[in-house]
């Protein structure tokens, strides 16, 4: 068996048009679901009557069903629903909007849970300290609690984003012309399935890897305030190498040692 490399190059060229589509779905879903997920998490934490039950139900519905079922339901329900409202025009709507809907609904549920756990990691003392310097609860939330919660949420947000990227490949079911859809069409024309799928595989790998790097840098930038006591885990820039990077965990410092720690490190650097 040999791979038709010319064909692979060709597919790579055409499928690249799908990259923006994939990214669009991911970005739209993320931009909407981040604030909404945060809001839903707050509804759950503060047990706002009525709304809390709705959010709970919503989250368990989304988490309890496979995404493919959600796609099929949205894709069959929405067009006919819209047909009743705006008539025939409903069927000429770009299917990418349905993809936006499904993936946004889906990641809202995931991120609600991510934010819920992250907000709960912030110590109640932070709120009390804020109150005692005369800040209002809202100011404390925006300036003290949310920034800390976001940082502890970042690893899970990264995770959710990667799942979202990979799941977005299912958009082809709604005839959205994303990377997967384009490659599948090409493959069906020429019966070179493996080659086309390998290209898809590489594209997703590149996209997800880039996302991972971006999130890692974000995490490193924003968690500057908790870097000193322990070294943050080192990002593995060479995922395919056998040799793993050395992660030296510095021993838990004693109470008195911690204070001079930052300085010691600076001195160490100079030497």
């Amino acid at each position: 068996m040999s791979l038709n490399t010319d064909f692979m190059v060709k597919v790579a060229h055409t499928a690249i048009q799908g990259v923006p589509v994939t990214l669009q779905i991911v970005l739209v879903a993320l931009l909407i679901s981040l604030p909404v997920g945060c809001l839903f998490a707050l509804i759950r934490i503060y047990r706002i009557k009525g709304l809390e039950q709705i959010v709970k139900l919503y989250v368990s519905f989304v988490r309890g069903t496979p995404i493919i079922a959600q796609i099929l339901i949205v894709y069959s329900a929405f067009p006919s629903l819209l047909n009743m409202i705006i008539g025939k025009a409903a069927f000429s709507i770009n299917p990418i909007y349905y993809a936006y809907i499904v993936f946004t609904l889906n990641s809202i549920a995931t991120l609600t849970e991510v934010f819920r756990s992250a907000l709960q990691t912030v110590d109640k003392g932070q709120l009390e300290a804020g109150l005692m310097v005369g800040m209002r609860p809202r100011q404390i939330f925006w300036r003290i609690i949310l920034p800390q919660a976001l940082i502890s949420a970042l690893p899970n947000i990264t995770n959710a984003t990667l799942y979202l990227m990979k799941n977005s490949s299912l958009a082809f079911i709604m005839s959205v012309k994303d990377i997967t859809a384009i490659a599948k069409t090409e493959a069906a024309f020429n019966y070179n399935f493996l080659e086309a799928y390998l290209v898809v595989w590489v594209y997703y790998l590149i996209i997800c890897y880039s996302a991972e790097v971006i999130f890692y840098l974000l995490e490193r930038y924003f968690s500057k305030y908790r870097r000193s006591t322990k070294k943050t885990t080192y990002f593995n820039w060479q995922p395919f190498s056998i040799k793993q990077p050395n992660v030296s965990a510095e021993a838990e410092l004693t109470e008195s040692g911690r204070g001079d720690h930052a300085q010691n490190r600076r001195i160490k650097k100079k030497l």
Partner: protein
Amino acid sequence: MLKIEGLRKSYDGNEILKGISVDVSKGDVISIIGPSGSGKTTLLRNMTTLEQADGGHIQFADVDKDFQKLSSKDIQTIRRNVGFVFQNYNLFNNKTALQNITEGLIVARKVNKSEAKKIALEALERVGLSDRQNHYPSQLSGGQQQRVGIARAVALNPKVIFFDEPTSALDPELVGEVLKVMRDLAESGTTMVVVTHQMNFARNVSNKVIFMADGHIVEQGSPESIFEHPSEKRTQEFLTDILANV
């Protein structure tokens, strides 16, 4: 200046504070001592409206009301006139030492930034941490964190500063540096209410000692009278126990 009468608080039917009255005058340094579970911390949290008391009256700043009838404006007035130093420091983890102090000044007091920075630097110098202004709490030792906590309270120039067991979470060798700062504050005339297990501080720095047990004030008076001639049996037992362990 600050007068609390008949303060009551219960949790799930358990009465923790059974009608406490405290009178704080300007320049007072009051130590509250007592066995654990006697309600010392709860008293502090209720006096400062961090928790809502079930009954009692407060007279402080422009407020002269029953605790249950405090409006949110009253609560804000009370909070703006007190400073609070927590047992576990509670510094804002995402802010540097300097920002921890300026935060309240800028956001709550609407002091302009350069002025706030000036005040904060003075406060840090007062607790001997000028060189650590750009350190985050995680880069400071417990003792240093608590000193920043004190500086944060001092910078707001409150009428009274409350200390909730400020040295209890510290390693023994770090207690001294925090007590020294507190002693300096007391000497400069700051009004302080301190819940503490440091008997030396209670005895030598404060001008009034309150001994609490089981939600009551058992005895109060000058440090000499409490430590040398306690009149209540409960006080004598407590002091014998605690001094035996020193």
